């Protein structure tokens, strides 16, 4: 999965995807991600986003939410791992965008389970990039829409 530096200091890209080997519609894989309350608190601390709707049940209900919800940015950030690990280089993502269509409620006990699947949407040989589109669902409904990552790859 991870490229290794050889003795000359160059990178062996043999295990990483190359543009020439890809076709539109190819799957890059799937992943299941679980969010629990401690995970939300951890993300709040790491990101600096301490909005109470992500950790305070009473507050979340008072402002009309079904309960504590995951940070949209936690979902967006977590599903990106499917793309970066496939690419073998987390710095290869040159553009990454999404819309947040539904909240992901996270229960006080147990977890919220989010499913993500990625497919090659477009290939641009001139720019040296592939666009990967992600489908992100919770309880069968899409929670992110138009989730697109443009990845720079070797030819």
């Amino acid at each position, binding site marked *: 999965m*991870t490229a290794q530096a050889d003795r000359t200091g160059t990178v062996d890209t043999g295990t990483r995807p190359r543009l020439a080997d890809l076709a539109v519609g190819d799957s890059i894989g799937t992943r299941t991600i679980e969010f629990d309350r401690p995970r939300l608190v951890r993300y709040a601390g790491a990101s600096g986003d301490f909005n109470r709707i992500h950790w305070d049940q009473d507050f979340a209900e008072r402002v009309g939410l079904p309960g504590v919800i995951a940070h949209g940015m936690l979902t967006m950030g977590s599903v990106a791992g499917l793309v970066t*690990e496939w690419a073998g280089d987390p710095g290869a993502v040159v*553009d990454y965008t999404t819309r*947040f269509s539904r909240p992901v409620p996270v229960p006080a006990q147990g977890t919220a389970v989010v499913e993500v699947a990625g497919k090659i949407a477009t290939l641009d040989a001139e720019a040296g990039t592939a666009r990967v589109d992600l489908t992100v669902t919770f309880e069968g409904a899409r929670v992110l829409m138009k989730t697109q990552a443009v990845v720079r790859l070797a030819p």
Partner: protein
Amino acid sequence: MANPDFQGREYPATVPYAVGREKIREFAEAVGATDPAHHDLVAARGLGYPDLVAPPTFAVVIAQRSEGQYVTDPAAGIDFSRVVHADERFTHHRPIVAGDELVTVLHVDSVTSRGPLSMVTTRCEIFAAPGTGAENGSPAPGGVDAGSDRPGTPVATVTSTLAIRGEDA
């Protein structure tokens, strides 16, 4: 309702944000990013980076600090308890790496209201601060305009849209 007078506003460049190795590791752990280039210096250097590489959404840490100048200004009319994140985009002119010193210029690109719902779109232009040694990444597409008043080399652009529900929404 969000104050439409803020549309088009540009804020002065922030003080530099110093990207630390442990912050990259902490953020990567929080989003479950296990790629060794976030955690292990040898792995990051093996990919050709000078130091640990930040995950693709790390720039939100820097952007949200900058957005605070606008969204917490009482005159902007944004009730943060009624805010829902509508969309987000990261454009990386080069990867963010540990050791970067990054300054941000915040733009309020759009403020619209329809009925009780307001939408605000902000854009954070993130630059490597000049003279910090953080300008040594790959040149951005188009390069640097000599003589421009931009505060350094472009590193990332973060665009975010918030929806603010009015009391009746």
